[in-house]
């Protein structure tokens, strides 16, 4: 599961998710109100917060489809950074 930083950051981009509702691994982020501009801003925020860089092959809509997929890609980048 992801860390609190990720949860807090992501929730800020999901207007259709209630504060008391859990954020599930496999929810479609688009259904929670994440739009194109939101995705780009989320990308920049994640890169800044985690000091990583998404390469072009990770820059697809698929990466931003669900919290689970996004966290998997992000944590992979963080590990690469540490290695």
């Amino acid at each position: 599961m992801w860390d609190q930083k990720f949860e807090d950051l992501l929730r800020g981009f999901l207007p259709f998710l209630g504060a008391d509702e859990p954020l599930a691994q496999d929810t479609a982020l688009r259904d929670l109100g994440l739009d194109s501009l939101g995705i780009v801003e989320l990308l920049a925020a994640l890169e800044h917060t985690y000091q990583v860089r998404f390469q072009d092959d990770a820059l697809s809509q698929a990466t931003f489809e669900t919290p689970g997929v996004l966290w998997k890609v992000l944590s992979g980048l963080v590990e690469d950074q540490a290695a």
Partner: protein
Amino acid sequence: MDSTSSWDGTSGAAHGVPVPGHRHDSLVHTLLDEAVSSSPASAAVSDAEGQWSYARLDEYSRAVTDWLAAQGLGPGDRLVVQLPTNRELVAMFYGASRRGVVFVPLNPHMKEYHLRSVLANAEPALVLCAEGQLATFNTVTATPVHEFGGVWSEVEKIADRGSRPDTAVDVAPDQPAVLVYTSGSTAAPKAVICPHAQITFATRSMVQVLGYRPDDVVFCRFPMSWDYGLYKVLMCAVGRSAIVLADAESDLRLLTAIRECGATVVPIVPSLAAMIATLARRTERPAPLVRMFTNTGAALPQPVIETLRDAFPGVRVVRQFGQTECKRVSIMPPDQDDERPDSVGLPLPGTRVLVLGEDGESVPVGETGEIVAVGPHVMPGYWRNPEVSARTFRRHAPTGELRLHTGDFGSLDEDGYLYFQGRRDDMFKRKGIRMSTLEIEAAAMDIPGVRAAAVLPPSERHDLALFVESDLAPHAVLRELAGRLEQQKVPAVCRVLSDFPLTLHGKNEKKQLAQLLDGSDQ
């Protein structure tokens, strides 16, 4: 110089020449025909799947004409398409034009909630939808509906064997070529009638100012269901330029996509510009070939303009202003992009802009009034909506000219540059597209369990906000709304109130709601 606010785009120093190549018998498909005869092998249109030359596009457009004839469609019939914007859709557009068929492109994100009323209003002879959408359409219309895949394989067969030349018909320039459904002062979308003559005039005038040229590659992220995207296709034909039709998949790779296709011109709206600016800040290699960004929808924030200029050295960031009802009101000439930063430019060449007071007379220079557009670009009205048409498109008795009362307020300076100030009704623009509080309130009231609804347009202090009286949770209301409206129209914030102001549309009540929002947001 005239001391009142009326500016003739034909007499301005920058726009002193007549529009080249404009003939009053121009038709939408003549724009393609001209490009084919002068530049058949040039790249015309590309999408994620490939590229067509002008000659290839022409072949497919004629095959579409043939196919439409075989379906029994003829002049004046409406063809509704709710399809992604790609090469095939461009061919459909020109093919419909050759047959005199009225092209009615709908936003692929338009939901059943609006489709029902739009189809009833358009009364199409045929509907083409994306794969898997047949069931939805069959619940909202009795009109024949075809999925795109089967249709296109038939069109390809016709193109392979060669289309029959006798399926094209004589089309009069005053006949509608397109119906563009837009949001407005009514709860349901209404269609602007766009005849061939108005479309081709506006297209050529815009190309004259913006200077599209044969070596231009125009990166277009906007769908043809929006006139912004539709006209880019036509402008490229006039400029013999190539258009690249980009979809949402490219959004995260915008800069790479722009660079790889060699784009020189990128039409933007503020939200797309914000995306490009955000992405430009995280890369050292933006897209060096881009020479011009052309903006519409709303003013670009200064920091975004500066980021674009930093990332794309020498680029022009062009301000434009308009509405579908006449396509384009004004453009700031590209070589003046850093002058008069608050202006939205000069009237489109060959047209005039008036600023009228409440008495219907031009106000003095510098004073605010309603922006009124006059000229060959003014559309004849809304489709099957005489009441709203009569309010918006008014015949000026002394001159007999049709004047578009935009509902936008602003002023002209002594040199004829236009300044937009705002609206005084329920309409506003968000993420580049026009919408009204009325329309969003109506959709909110459609949600079971919502007893009352009021919408506040975006302001400097807050984004688009919805207030409802309901037992539903705020995010549940927004989710329901997202099932009824396009994403741009779904408010960023929803507040559930137990005690709702009695009159929803009163100015004072809305002021109270705004205070509630601003107070709790700060």
